[in-house]
């Protein structure tokens, strides 16, 4: 009750102070609240009235003390009233609280009694329950045992019934059921196999399952069943612990036998076509399987076609595609379905079947494809006729296209790339064939030309004599006509070949965008392998004409040499660059590898032309020389009679020279001859003056074609060769008086007619002088003939 003694300090803070003081009283000291230790704090716990009063007294004035005293009294009064109020209020609350506590005391008593009753009851229940359990224990155990026996019996029954059931399943062909049933029983049977009865069942089951497996295998082997059946079959077999590898093998071998049949069909066709080819029969094979031939293939029965009377290559490939390749695809697909993509469960998964199966599949596909490819290649190789390339290209295209399916099915397989290689090889082979076809064509055309030349041999001479009669020209083609027709033939043939080869690179062909066909095929294959090789071949074969003819007595007609030389020259000037430009444009050749430049080819053609022309000079010179040589060698010049005529040989020489002149003039423009002195034909020979004259026999080689004097130089060469031969032959003989005179006459005759053919008539003069001079030297009785007599004889002809 210290609070009553301590006067409240101020009103506004009164309630809190009261509160805290209550707390203080009840010992509920507020933590944290720093108690003021000031003894002057009237509300503080350490208030010391003495100190407070002393302090007030010391500090305050009287008035202030008075004020303070009144204030303090006032506060004390208010505190007292507050106290009274509080006490009053709290009294009531105490009363009610006491009441409540008393009531509670009574209630608890009652509850305690009830609880006692409950526990007693529970005890009774427990007791009962224990009693009941005790009595039911035996029966329960019995029931459990019984139910166990029951299930066991059920199982046993299942087992005993199993064989019958399996049999039934087998009868009903409910293989799946049978397998699942057997699977369930298998372990048990395995476990109790030491007991004879179970062993019996197991054996029975084994037999049945064996039978079943047998049936399944049979079914699998028959293969006639649908893919779904097959897959079920395989699945079941797998579950029956059939080794997967064996299954794969079986599946594949089964598929193989079917595909083999396809291949054999193809092979038979191949042989058939061979037989019909060789027999030239008209057996048009009807193709049962392959109806989806594109409409364009109606042209396969084109009569214009190469004479493969059997199935053509397109049909063959079609058949191959439709039968073999599509079957192969089916096999691959179903195989993958069965063995590779099939979700594997449990123990099967651990066997790595997909890997093994995949490996097997690859081997399988590779071997079969290899056989197929070899067949296809054989067939392609038989495709030798170069008449229509489109068929082959289309066939190859189809072949290639169909193989893409395999690449989709079997991503890692080498088969499609091998197929592409076959196509590339075929294309290469084709180019070679075309080249050889062109070559034979060229040879054939040359043979034709040769025949044409052989026939009008007379007409050329006749034309030269009559100045070219129109009738003779109509009857047989002249040299220029032959030349144009020959070069046109060749060019057209080359163009058509190019067009044929061009099919390989057509946009709609699947393999045309392969790098080979874009690059190498165009540049190395077509340009180099075909066009350049052909041009080179022309040049080379022309050169061969020069070589072989020289040794074997000139089997080539000289006119042909001339014609060829002009042909080569034309090639050099225009044709080669035209052909190559055409090729480059058509094939858009991008030269990654170095190719033969046009200039090199031109140089080669030019060289060939030169060689041919030189050879022509030689051959013609030789022909005339031989005549002269024989005429000199076979005559007895010592005992000859006085000359009355020009010898026939000399006339023949002049005639031949004239016809050569005409012949060359037909193909080469005439050059400019030196102006001739008007009396050149009347020039006289001096028998002795020329004896020491120096004459050098220079080789005749025609070096330039641009020179307009080409014709003249050709003729000059021929005449030079002939006269030189004449000279050498004369030097080997001994002459009598009339022998010398005959030579004089002959030389004069030659002089009269030959000067016009040469560029420099002095050359003819020199050589003829030398001949007469040599004859005079080798004459036992050199008394020359009068010039006037010679002239008379010569003019008489």
């Amino acid at each position, binding site marked *: 009750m210290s609070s009553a003694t301590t006067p409240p300090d101020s009103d506004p803070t009164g309630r809190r102070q009261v509160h805290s003081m209550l707390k203080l009283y009840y010992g509920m000291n507020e933590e944290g609240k720093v108690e003021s230790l000031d003894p002057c704090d009237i509300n503080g716990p350490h208030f010391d009235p003495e100190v407070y009063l002393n302090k007030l007294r010391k500090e305050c004035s009287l008035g202030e003390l008075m004020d303070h005293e009144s204030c303090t009294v006032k506060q004390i009064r208010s505190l007292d009233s507050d106290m009274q109020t509080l006490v009053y209020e709290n009294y009531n609350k105490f009363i009610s609280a006491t009441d409540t506590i008393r009531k509670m005391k009574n209630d608890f008593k009652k509850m305690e009694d009830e609880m006692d009753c409950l526990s007693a009851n529970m005890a009774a229940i427990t007791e009962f329950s224990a009693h009941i359990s005790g009595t039911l224990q035996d029966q329960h155990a019995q029931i459990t045992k019984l139910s166990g026996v029951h299930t066991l019996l059920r199982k046993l029954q299942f087992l005993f019934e199993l064989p019958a059931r399996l049999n039934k399943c087998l009868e009903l062909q409910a293989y799946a059921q049978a397998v699942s049933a057997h699977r369930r029983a298998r372990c048990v049977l395995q476990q109790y196999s030491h007991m004879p009865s179970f062993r019996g069942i197991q054996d029975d089951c084994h037999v049945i399952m064996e039978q079943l497996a047998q049936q399944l295998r049979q079914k699998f082997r028959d293969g006639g069943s649908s893919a779904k059946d097959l897959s079920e079959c395989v699945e079941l077999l797998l579950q029956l612990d059939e080794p997967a590898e064996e299954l794969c093998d079986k599946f594949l071998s089964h598929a193989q036998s079917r595909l083999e049949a396809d291949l054999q069909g193809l092979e038979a066709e191949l042989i058939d076509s061979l037989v019909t080819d060789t027999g030239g029969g008209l057996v048009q094979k009807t193709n049962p399987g392959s109806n989806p031939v594109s409409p364009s293939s109606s042209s396969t029965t084109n009569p214009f076609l190469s004479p493969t009377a059997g199935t053509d290559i397109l049909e063959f490939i079609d058949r191959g595609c439709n039968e073999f390749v599509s079957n192969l695809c089916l096999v691959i697909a179903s195989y993958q379905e069965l063995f590779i993509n099939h979700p594997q469960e449990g123990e099967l998964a651990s066997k790595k079947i997909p890997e093994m199966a995949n490996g097997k599949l690859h081997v399988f596909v590779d071997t079969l494809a290899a056989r197929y490819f070899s067949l296809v290649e054989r067939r392609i190789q038989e495709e030798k006729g170069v008449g229509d390339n489109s068929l082959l290209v289309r066939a190859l295209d189809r072949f290639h296209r169909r193989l893409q399916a395999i690449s989709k099915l079997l991503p890692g397989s080498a088969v499609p790339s091998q197929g592409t290689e076959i196509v590339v090889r075929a294309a290469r082979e084709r180019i070679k064939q075309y080249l050889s076809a062109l070559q034979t064509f060229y040879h054939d055309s040359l043979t034709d030309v040769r025949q044409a030349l052989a026939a009008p041999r007379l007409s050329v001479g006749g034309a030269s004599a009559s100045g070219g009669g129109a009738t003779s020209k109509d009857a047989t083609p002249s040299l220029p006509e032959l030349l144009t027709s020959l070069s046109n033939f060749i060019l057209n043939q080359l163009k058509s070949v190019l067009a044929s080869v061009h099919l390989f690179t057509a946009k709609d062909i699947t393999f045309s965008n392969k790098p080979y066909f874009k690059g190498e095929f165009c540049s190395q294959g077509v340009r180099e392998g075909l066009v350049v090789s052909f041009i080179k071949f022309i040049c080379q074969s022309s050169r061969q004409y020069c070589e072989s003819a020289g040794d074997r007595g000139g089997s080539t007609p000289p006119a042909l040499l001339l014609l060829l030389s002009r042909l080569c020259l034309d090639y050099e000037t225009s044709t080669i660059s035209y052909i190559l430009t055409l090729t480059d444009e058509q094939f858009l050749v991008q030269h990654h590898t170095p190719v033969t430049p046009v200039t090199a080819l031109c140089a080669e053609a030019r060289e060939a032309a030169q060689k041919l022309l030189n050879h022509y000079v030689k051959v013609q010179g030789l022909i005339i020389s031989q005549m002269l040589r024989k005429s000199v060698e076979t005559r007895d010049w*010592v005992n000859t009679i006085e000359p009355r005529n020009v010898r026939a040989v000399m006339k023949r020489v002049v005639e031949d020279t004239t016809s050569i002149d005409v012949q060359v003039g037909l193909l080469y423009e005439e050059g400019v001859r030196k102006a001739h002195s008007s009396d050149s034909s009347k020039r006289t020979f001096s028998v002795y003056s020329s004896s020491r004259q120096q004459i050098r*026999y*220079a080789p005749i080689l025609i070096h330039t074609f641009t020179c307009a004097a080409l014709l003249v130089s050709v003729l000059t060469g021929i005449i030079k060769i002939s006269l030189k031969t004449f000279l050498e032959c004369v030097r080997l003989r001994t002459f009598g008086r009339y022998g010398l005179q005959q030579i004089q006459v002959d030389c004069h005759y030659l002089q009269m007619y030959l000067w016009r053919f040469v560029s420099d008539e002095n050359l003819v003069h020199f050589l003829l002088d030398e001949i007469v001079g040599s004859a005079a030297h080798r004459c036992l009785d050199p008394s020359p003939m009068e010039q006037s007599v010679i002239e008379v004889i010569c003019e008489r002809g």
Partner: protein
Amino acid sequence: MKMDDDAPVIYGLEFQARALTAQTAETDAIRFLVGTQSLKFDNQIHIIDFDDENNMINKSVLLHDAGEIWHISGSPADKAVLTTCYSKTSENRVLTCAAVWRMPPEWESGSHESPDDSSNNPQTLELLCHLDNTAHGSVACVLWEPLGDGKRVISLAENHVLLWDLQESSTKATISSTATLEGKGQLKFTAGKWSPHHNSTQLVTANDTAIRGWDLRSMSQIYCIENAHGQLVRDLDFNPNKQYYLASCGDDCKVKFWDVRHINEPVKCLEEHSHWVWSVRYNHSHDQLLLTGSSDSRVILSNMVSISSEPFGHLVDDDDLSDNEENQQEDKGKEPLQDSIIATYEEHEDSVYAVEWSAADPWLFASLSYDGRLVINRVPRALKYRILL
């Protein structure tokens, strides 16, 4: 003088000439024999001595009054003995005969004293014997047994091969065996060569375009190259070191090399001349060197390394190795020689009918043209050293 070593030496005869031979038995002096062709004057044999030191020519002239000389050939055993083929006109008939001659012993001494007089008063050849051919027709050439003792000769007369034995110091000639070429037409031998190989038992002849080999023991043909040349075959020569190799030349301007074991194709073919090739000669020691003469008035010296017996150059002896180290080094630097033309000689102005290597100096040769010009040339020194070293 040394500067001009490679320059040709030219000697002119007054008469036209076709026949040239080296004096085979003479191995010390460089000596050639030339036979002239003249219908009006007495024919001569010019003995051309070449003085290698002074680069000069000494000549002696012997009279050959039997007729114009078409072929001349020296005995391999006796340098004074030689044969000629000469044409003789009698009763308006020209026949080419053959005879064995001996040079008079004094020609050598007389010539040196007054070379100019020799033409005025030439000595005459001494006739040893005729190779009587009246039964067989004109003789194309006479061949001595190579490396023989000078007792056996072959003459080719028309289509007959006649093998003669010379007896009693070559004063008597008897036919020991004959062979005749039978066939269509008028067959006539144009050239022949007695092979130095196989113990001198083989002969090769040319008629028209064919080359034939003969076995002299059985006198029968052993091979025949038909159409060896496109035209007439003019001359033949055996490779002195390779027994089956043979060179031929002819009117087709070609020189061909044959391996007689494979006669279908020539081993090699040269076509350098622009007119008939009249003469072909292998060098006696270095068979890669080949000389050809042609009526385009050129002489060509070729180096046929690839088909020679020394395809990789001369084998260097051990002595040479030790002697000269530098040379050896040079050898290594050299590339193997290619077949090539070494030189074309254009000193002649008329057809060259004969070329011949010297018997004494393997680096020297002579060529004769119809106008009587004899030219003596040497193998270029650079090549000579290249072959030797």
